[in-house]
């Protein structure tokens, strides 16, 4: 998505990304970014929370005009929950799932091999977490 933003911007269309993976966006460097410090999946607000979704969108629209080349990253003040344990949980690898992940990788490589043989054109980047 960062590459798309950069391409549109280079061709005269101002862009802004609303996202939750700040390390990836900082690495890629995009024109304007509003960081929503949520688990991946709901960057526009908690599901069914229309007021929060509106708040995030209005913040993003304001950042469209307030951001500059130097001040390109803003953080939304919204919070996912008081419990912060979701942060440790994402793509977790520990002794409880190492063997399962190894087996999953083997199964996936077999699938990919099969897809290649049947002529699939494009491979997905990530399909599980």
């Amino acid at each position: 998505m960062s590459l798309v933003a950069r391409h549109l911007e280079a061709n005269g269309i101002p862009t802004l990304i609303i996202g939750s993976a700040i390390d990836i966006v900082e690495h890629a460097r995009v024109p304007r970014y509003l960081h929503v410090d949520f688990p991946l999946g709901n960057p526009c607000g908690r599901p069914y929370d229309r007021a929060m979704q509106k708040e995030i969108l209005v913040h993003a629209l304001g950042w469209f005009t307030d951001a500059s080349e130097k001040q390109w990253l803003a953080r939304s003040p919204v919070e996912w929950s008081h419990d912060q344990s979701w942060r440790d949980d994402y793509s977790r690898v520990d002794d409880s799932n190492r063997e399962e992940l190894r087996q999953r990788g083997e199964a996936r490589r077999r699938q990919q091999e099969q897809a290649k043989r049947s002529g699939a054109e494009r491979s997905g980047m990530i399909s599980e977490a």
Partner: protein
Amino acid sequence: MTPKKDNSNTAGRPNDVNPQKYDVGYMQRTRDFYSAQGYSNHYQWAKNTDTPFTTLQKPLEDCRVAVITTAMPDSEQGRARRDVYPLPSRPYPNSMYTAELSWHKNVTHTDDTGSFLPLRALDEAAGKGIVGELCERFYTVPTDYSQRNTTEIDAPHLLKLCREDKVDIALLVPL
């Protein structure tokens, strides 16, 4: 008693015993996760130190806004082939196909499209005069292992769609 050694991958986590908040290190977590599955050829995230930057050509309240999402249409075609699809912004879609994307499936869901596709919120903002209008179409874009597919195929396709629809600004929302 010696505390049990934590040998899990928690990239981004400070060394505090009980950190309250920290930015999750998604790139490192993903590399660790795929290493555990036996992959060594890791995805190379784009790296840049600067960026193109275009200032708004007209006031926000006059701008037509397009939305671009990494979710796919919840249709036979969308499920079968991840691609750039222009789709009608209204009526707001009740569902989008997100199962193949990497999001935090243990702790949330994507059943409410408003949580990642701000069409309704943009219509409301337009109704209040904060922006001009929501573009009649929104667009999907696949997350692709190949940066080349993105830069040489998908991004130019999206630019063409934005120009067809006379889009002034674009809001990009990766899940």
